[in-house]
């Protein structure tokens, strides 16, 4: 009989670690059950996967782990609907389906030698973390790194256990901020775009990579532009409702561009060419 594999067939993966980032966000580490797949599996920062809970459904999640750290994949899940809630109910040792990696990726080859400015908000930090750890693992390949990361409150910050590794990395600065502090927060209070304006990273030989809630993006872009970043120097990763991940189901198009094939990573120069649908 002919080969029974097809585009929509997931690989099985076992959840081997769950980190509760915030009250509604968890990061899952998964290991593929089949050894050949575990060995072979490779991806680039910026790509995404279709993760499924059998019996509930599939949903799209960016890879938040870096491919420099082999043997597992990580994805962060904000509880919002049926599939994300079902994922939140899982314990370590349970099995999920994973299809991927899909999409394009952050052009890390072209970023070599450049200064990098990461600007993340809330769970928007998830895809940025993949590129960030990738660059930190190959530190000599990249110039100075600024990391701006903010959330509504300290309890909404993700990846807190990595902050020390980030701020202590060579030639790397971490700028954390929250919209509203709490009793124990001694750090900066204010929105991310304002912090970017204050620190004023230089655009010379630099690329800004941003991801976060629409309101943060909306106010961050003008700040970066005012600092002198051109549209081709600002990169983002788009969130769209996706289903098949392989350009067949017709759901994720903006004009003739399919976010699952030509994205999700785009520069602002590219986004300006697209219909203003998004």
């Amino acid at each position, binding site marked *: *009989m*002919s*080969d*029974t*594999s*097809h*585009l*929509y*067939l*997931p690989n*099985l993966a*076992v959840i081997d670690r769950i980190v509760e980032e915030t009250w509604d966000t968890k990061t899952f580490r998964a290991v593929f059950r089949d050894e050949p797949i575990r060995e072979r599996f490779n991806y680039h920062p910026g790509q995404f996967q279709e993760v*499924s809970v*059998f*019996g*509930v*459904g*599939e*949903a799209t999640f960016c890879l938040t782990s870096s491919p420099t750290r082999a043997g597992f994949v990580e994805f962060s899940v*904000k509880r*919002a*609907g049926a599939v*994300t809630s079902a994922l939140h109910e899982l314990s370590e*040792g*349970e*099995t999920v*389906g994973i299809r991927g990696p899909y999409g394009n990726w952050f052009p890390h080859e072209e970023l070599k030698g450049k200064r990098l400015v990461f600007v993340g908000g809330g769970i928007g930090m998830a895809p940025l973390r993949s590129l960030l750890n990738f660059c930190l693992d190959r530190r000599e390949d990249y110039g100075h790194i600024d990391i701006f990361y903010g959330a509504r409150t300290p309890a909404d910050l993700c990846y807190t256990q990595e902050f020390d590794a980030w701020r202590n990395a060579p030639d790397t600065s971490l700028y954390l901020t929250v919209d509203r502090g709490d009793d124990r927060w001694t750090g900066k209070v204010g929105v991310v775009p304002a912090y970017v304006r204050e620190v004023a990273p230089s655009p010379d030989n630099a690329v800004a990579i941003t991801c976060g809630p*629409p309101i943060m993006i909306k106010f961050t872009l003008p700040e970066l532009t005012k600092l002198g970043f051109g549209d081709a120097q600002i990169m983002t990763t788009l*969130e*769209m*409702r996706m*289903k*098949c991940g*392989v*350009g*067949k*189901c*017709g*759901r994720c*198009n*903006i*004009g*003739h561009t399919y976010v699952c*094939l030509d994205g999700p990573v785009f520069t602002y120069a590219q986004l300006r060419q697209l*219909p*203003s*649908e*998004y």
Partner: protein
Amino acid sequence: MRQDDLGAVILKKTDLASWVRGLLGSYRVVAPVREGDAPLRYRPLAVAEAMVLDGRRPLRAPKEHFIPQVEPLLAFRGSGKALTVQPAATGESGTVILGVRPCDARALGRLDDVFLGRKDTDTLYEGRRKATRLVGLACATPSWGCFCTSVGGSPAGTEGLDLLLTDLGDRYHVSLLSDAGRALMADTACEPSTESDAAAAQAQHAAAIDRMRVLFEAEAIGEKVEWDAPVWMRHARRCLACGACSFLCPTCHCFDIQDEVTADGGLRFRCWDTCQFGEFTRMAAGHNPRPSQVERLRQRVSHKFKYLVEEFGRMGCTGCGRCVEACPVNIDIRSVLTEIEGGER
């Protein structure tokens, strides 16, 4: 319309049933049938006599034999370490679809662009496509929504067909369009077509073409599609956001993937979906880039007449007219396109 390089034969209507019975011996044969009060639908034939070839093109396209309304993708059983997954089969038994209208055959080529052409091959679709032969039927009378000649098609078009039948009253003129088509006629008693047969067929084709006006120049319309134009609101305001147009459309292919739970496990399937439904692009957190029918109508028309042209050089519409006839509120894509071509009304 292509030259019938492989020639043509004549199949007498009195021999039609026995020809079909011969096909039934080796193939799964699908043809328009009438079941009770239901409209004509392409269904597997149990007996040759059930086939209905008269009349206008059926309202339900044969696309469901290539992308079914519901298609299992995989089955799963057990849980945890014992969880197993079995993929759905990709093979398909040999099938012949009879009575395919030229607009529908052409439409399959548009589905090929997406499922076979765009990046990875969808092997589930490919298996069905490879296993299926298409026997066309030229249209003598257009249905009221038809406009194939306005989008580069023809009621006697041969694109995508293995055979094309033209009804000459007591017999069919059968154009042989491929080796597979010729093979389908090989074991049948039929005479070669004569010059007068060919002339009669061509006359019928010409008459059918004459019955339709070319309404607009579809090749150029893509460039005239504008993002912020009143045409969208004018037509979309009354749109009810149902899926009638998309589900009947022979080139529409959008789908959703869902899971279903059964007593001992479950299955994952894909099913038809449409950009006309409000939920289609809505994200879990609530943001929807296409929040109203205005954006959704713009997407539908732009996708078919602009975006697909930019991607493949071919329109995603073959003028079958089903959307026109099925729309509960008479949103007529011909009117929309005429307005776009002519600029402001």
